[in-house]
């Protein structure tokens, strides 16, 4: 199929999906708030077995429409971007086929009306992610990264499947609405079942959203093409974990312990990933760690019960992180695939538009006032102290992370756009319209979407209940903003001016620097603790249990029988006299019977 036609079909399909999402949104806006709660459409019966019926059905409620809009909207922009970005790749159609498979799977995940199809969508987005990470299948690192991502996601899938079993055996159905109604009616807070279900679901959520300790696949996933990183590993798929918690908020609200756990893991991941991002040199990896960190924020938000704030941050994050990735992609494109920060620089002049959009994205990520990131992040940081389940630790770490975030993203910014170009052979230039138009659109969203905060709260109210009132605390707000500004300033001091200061800091903090640069050695630890023992046990089982154990035992039965036969065969000596002896012996025995019996 010609490339152009393939691309147009793919973009058209996603654009159509976006249009339908908008239509759904408009329909929903006309409804009264009470009637928005949820519509289940049954497509067909998937299976019936004894006490168990599954229908392929979709659930339309504000939450799913909200997610539809983000996925198809951002997805559409990134499709358009890819048209230009992937031009010239010999497998252009395959790329768009995978990309559309991803959009489909993500929509299945969002639209599913029961846990079963949630799992189906969940695994299918994992598949799409696997396919797209390993898109350049001749690159060994991409192949390995893809496998890693897939296996990690399968671990999550297994957790979710078991969660589905618990739900089924306890509620007798897998349908969201029935389960939630039954849970509300029957379960006490911190009921064992609620804890079990929520924790098992979390395994899936953490694996998909790259939270500790299942996070190692996400940085490696940057082996895929940049639009993929933007779409899947920043804007949509990795937020599925947050979506899952939000979707099952009824269950999670019944399990406050789990909520604390989520918030704790979220905030730790935020600071953990943020710290690693401080020192990386691969532009995409920095943004990937930043994604992990921001996902940590979202988990913090849903963990402390401000679901709509979490969803709001999910949305703004989708905009500005996609923007950042696409801008980075534009830079990489311009530098012919160069991803190392140390070989960039001075692109402000040659790529003014990209520079501007990257700056907007960075500001939004850093939470600079009046950008969208500011509103969504402030809401979370404030709630982490003032919210029902908030406390000072959550808040402190969140603020610390905010500072780090500002620092590392502006480190990237200064490295890339300031100074002089450090790879002389490259001739950077601005990309064509298809490449820049999505950037501009996303930049606009990243700047302005902050104003949608209240609308999001209201729109999602039928799902989450009325949003808690935004706490007003100017002191905390100021501290958070200051942290961001300080982070930017530090980056400026270290990277705008001379190198000597940077070297001094590096020397002073060498052990920490090494630790961070090597990503806390988590990959190595996993390799040592899990991968190698697994392989060793596999080899051990094959050699000891299979060859020398079972197989040997079975063969030994045969060998023993053979041996005994050999022994009996010795009787067959070939000597006539021995035969005679045997005959007489037989005669003796027979006579014994004749005479005595």
């Amino acid at each position, binding site marked *: 199929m010609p490339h152009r036609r393939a691309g147009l079909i793919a973009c058209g399909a996603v654009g159509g999906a976006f249009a339908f999402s908008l239509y759904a949104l408009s329909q929903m806006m006309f409804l009264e708030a009470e009637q928005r709660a949820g519509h289940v459409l049954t497509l067909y019966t998937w299976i019936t077995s004894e006490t168990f019926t599954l229908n392929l059905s979709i659930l339309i409620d504000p939450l799913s429409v909200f997610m539809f809009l983000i996925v198809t909207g951002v997805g559409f922009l990134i499709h358009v971007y890819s048209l230009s970005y992937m031009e010239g790749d010999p497998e252009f159609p395959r790329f768009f086929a995978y990309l559309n498979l991803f959009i489909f799977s993500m929509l299945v995940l969002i639209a599913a009306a029961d846990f079963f199809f949630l799992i189906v969508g969940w695994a299918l987005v994992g598949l799409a992610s696997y396919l797209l990470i390993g898109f350049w299948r001749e690159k060994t690192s991409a192949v390995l990264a893809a496998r890693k991502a897939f296996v990690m996601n399968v671990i999550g899938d297994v957790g979710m499947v078991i969660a589905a079993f618990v739900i089924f055996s306890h509620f007798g159905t897998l349908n969201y609405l029935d389960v939630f109604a039954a849970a509300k009616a029957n379960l006490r807070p911190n009921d064992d079942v609620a804890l079990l279900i929520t924790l098992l679901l979390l395994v899936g959520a953490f694996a998909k959203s790259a939270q500790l300790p299942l996070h190692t696949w996400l940085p490696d996933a940057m082996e895929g093409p940049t639009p993929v990183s933007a779409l899947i590993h920043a804007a949509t798929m990795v937020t599925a974990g947050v979506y899952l918690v939000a979707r099952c908020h009824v269950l999670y609200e019944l399990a406050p312990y789990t909520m604390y756990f989520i918030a704790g893991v979220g905030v730790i991941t935020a600071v953990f990933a943020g710290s690693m991002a401080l020192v990386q040199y691969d532009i995409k990896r920095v943004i990937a760690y930043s994604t992990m960190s921001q996902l940590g924020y979202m988990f913090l938000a849903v963990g402390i019960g401000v679901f709509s704030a979490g969803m709001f941050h999910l949305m703004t994050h989708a905009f500005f992180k996609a923007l950042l990735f696409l801008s980075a992609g534009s830079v990489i494109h311009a530098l012919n695939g160069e991803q190392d920060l140390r070989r960039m620089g001075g692109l402000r002049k040659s790529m003014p538009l990209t520079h501007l959009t990257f700056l907007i994205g960075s500001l939004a990520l850093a939470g600079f006032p009046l950008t969208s990131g500011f509103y969504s992040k402030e809401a979370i940081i404030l709630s982490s102290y003032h919210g029902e389940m908030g406390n000072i630790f959550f808040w402190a770490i969140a603020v610390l992370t905010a500072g780090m975030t500002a620092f590392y993203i502006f480190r990237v910014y200064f490295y890339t756009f300031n100074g002089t170009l450090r790879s002389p052979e490259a001739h950077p230039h601005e990309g064509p319209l298809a490449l820049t138009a999505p950037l501009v659109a996303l930049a606009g969203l990243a700047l302005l979407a902050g104003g949608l905060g209240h609308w999001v709260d209201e729109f999602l109210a039928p799902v989450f209940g009325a949003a808690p009132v935004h706490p007003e605390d100017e002191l905390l707000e100021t501290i958070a903003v200051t942290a961001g500004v300080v982070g930017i300033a530090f980056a400026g001091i270290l990277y705008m001016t001379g190198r000597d200061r940077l070297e001094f800091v590096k020397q002073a903090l060498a052990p920490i620097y090494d630790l961070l640069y090597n990503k806390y050695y988590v990959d190595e630890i996993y390799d040592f603790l899990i991968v190698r023992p697994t392989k060793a046990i596999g080899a051990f089982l094959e050699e000891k249990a299979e060859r020398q154990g079972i197989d040997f035992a079975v063969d030994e039965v045969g060998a023993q029988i053979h041996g005994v036969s050999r022994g009996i065969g010795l009787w067959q000596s070939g000597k006539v*006299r*021995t035969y005679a*002896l045997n005959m*007489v*012996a037989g*005669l*003796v025995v027979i*006579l*014994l019977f*004749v*005479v005595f019996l």
Partner: protein
Amino acid sequence: MFEITYDLVVFITGLMAVLASLGVILCSSPIYCALYLIGHMICLALLFLLYHAEFVAAVQIIVYAGAVMILFLFIIALLGGRKEIQEASFERFMALSFAGTLFGELLLAATVGPTKPIQGAVDAQVLAEVGSAKVVGLELFSRHLVPFELASVLLLVAAVGIICLAKFPSAPLKRRTR
């Protein structure tokens, strides 16, 4: 008196037969064995005679002690009567013990078990009047005709077999290797 003498003769003859048979298995030289066997045959022929089987006794002398044993002697002469070294071995011990057990069992069977009398087809008077050879002939050619013919076929087959064995030289056998 006659009875006692008769019994004594039977007893001594039987004892001699046993001793001769012992000689067969104990002598190391085949030629002596053959001679002892001839002696044994003659003793047996005497015993047959004493038990009123004149015809069989004659056949015993002619066929066995005569033809068969001469054949044996010929073969021994042909192959060379090498002496055999007798040594004690486990096999020999086993053979002795089995034979001993067998003997014990046979004795027990002979002495303990009841012997069921069979009514003879020929009563003693006829036997005394007609004489043994004639009766045997009558029996053989009337009631036992088929076995008799079969026996002759058997002898024929044996004769043919010997000719086959003697006529066609066979290749040396190769020992099977494993």
